[in-house]
């Protein structure tokens, strides 16, 4: 049997400690290209969002370069994230236990994992990050084309551009907040970052945070 949330490459290596393969090499490269783009986009975008942050444009060699590079980085991010989407969408489908998990958010934040339902490869928080990122990136790329004046200024009216620039700013603020949650969760939950660097987590980590997934992996093997 293959559960909906077991992804290609996921496997368990018995030993002391038990090691679990969580992300393949290509998935990790794909993730870090996306991550680099997202950080560069946030820095260049924030430079144009608030005068306090305009100094960030120096990182890109001045305002003109910031304006020119930002949309191209966005295009790279879009395709890179699309790769992640194809990889991860199935395992991020919303399940019944995800509601329970979300309702018990206070237990999550207090690290009382024993009170939570067993979850698969992704918990409801990770799924929420995945879907929010997906939707927001769609909003950002489409509104971004409308305000990419250098090539596309002739395709829309000024009123449409005003709406797009406001939607772009709002979506960017939200996606930066989602990104903060994503990064913080990876730091707070020890043993997580290894999944995206070396590709592995320990069996104890999988037992504690994604027990259903671990059981599925072992069950699938047997």
């Amino acid at each position, binding site marked *: 049997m293959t559960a909906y949330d077991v992804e290609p490459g996921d496997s368990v290596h018995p030993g002391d400690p038990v090691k679990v393969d969580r992300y393949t090499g290509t998935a990790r490269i794909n993730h870090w290209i996306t991550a680099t783009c997202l950080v560069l986009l946030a820095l260049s975008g924030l430079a144009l969002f608030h*005068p306090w942050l305009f100094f960030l444009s120096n990182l890109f060699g001045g305002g003109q370069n910031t304006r*020119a590079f930002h949309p191209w980085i966005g295009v790279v991010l879009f395709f890179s994230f699309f790769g992640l989407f194809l990889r991860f969408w199935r395992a991020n489908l919303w399940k019944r236990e995800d509601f329970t998990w979300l309702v018990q958010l206070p237990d999550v934040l207090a690290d009382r994992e024993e009170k939570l339902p067993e979850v698969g490869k992704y918990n409801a928080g990770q799924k929420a990050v995945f879907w929010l990122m997906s939707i927001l990136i769609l909003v950002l790329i489409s509104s971004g084309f409308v305000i990419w004046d250098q090539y596309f200024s002739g395709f829309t009216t000024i009123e449409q551009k*005003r709406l797009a620039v406001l939607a772009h700013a709002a979506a960017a603020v939200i996606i930066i907040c989602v990104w903060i949650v994503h990064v913080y969760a990876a730091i707070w939950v020890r043993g997580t970052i290894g999944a995206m660097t070396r590709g592995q987590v320990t069996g104890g980590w999988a037992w504690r945070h994604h027990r259903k997934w671990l059981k599925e992996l072992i069950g699938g093997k047997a």
Partner: protein
Amino acid sequence: MALFEFELPNPNTVNPVTNLGEADQVRRSASSVPPPARQLTPVAKLIDVSKCIGCKACQSACLEWNDKRADIGTFFGSYDNPADLTPEMFTLMRFTEWVNPETQDLEWLIRKDGCMHCEDPGCLKACPAPGAIVQYSNGIVDFVHENCIGCGYCVKGCPFNIPRISPVDHRAYKCTLCSDRVAVGQGPACAKACPTHAITFGTKDEMKAHAETRIKDLKSRGYNNAGLYDPPGVGGTHVMYVLHHADKPKIYANLPKDPHISLLVDIWKGAAKYVGMAAMGAFAAIGVLHYLVEGPSTVSPEDEESAKRLTGSGRS
């Protein structure tokens, strides 16, 4: 009022007094300026549409003074040339053939389009580049090209669709109200060149008084709705029109009846900026606080043991 009352004198070329330096700025995009020590007299350009003969001397003078050359265009069924404002053409005569429904007369409306030099400039409000757009205490709104980053936000901020981004140097251009001429006591090149004095330049008060006499004259000749276009929605403008049909500015090639900075731009440059910064700051702060209070979530040796039992490996 004599026809040549606003004939502009030739400048004093010996030790001219210059103003419109940084000390005369009252607003500066994406930054703040100290309150200026002196207040220059507000100036205005008055365009009397009823006196315009459509000769385009103003356009030629504008190109000449600003050392711009417009591309040779193509004919598209209108006297407008070029078809629209461009990064080189800061002012454009827009021709409208309008049949007056009351008289059935064909009226040829010719409006000299260009930057209105709003008292509350939407371009400056929208601009993210410090010092790329400035406003002087005499009312002139000017683009400082070396600070411009070519993002096109000014285009979204402007209620009159005026700024144009150059595809060559990626900077925004528009009428400067000849700030370089005004700074040394001269009037704009277009006003200097206008053969019928349809374009006049002076202090804003003088121009309003002059407009009054023109409106009185037009009303005496049957234009009952003649009036001054100095729209309050943008705090008034430093380029004003005398219109024979001031109740219908739209007929003059879509001159907006009640222009104001778009609500979307107000939200984007107002609430969104503060709410956005606060939201991002709050998320980061909550993260730090949670970590301080809660500490890291760690995997226990028992968890590792359970995993081992589950996989049936390394049983001790």
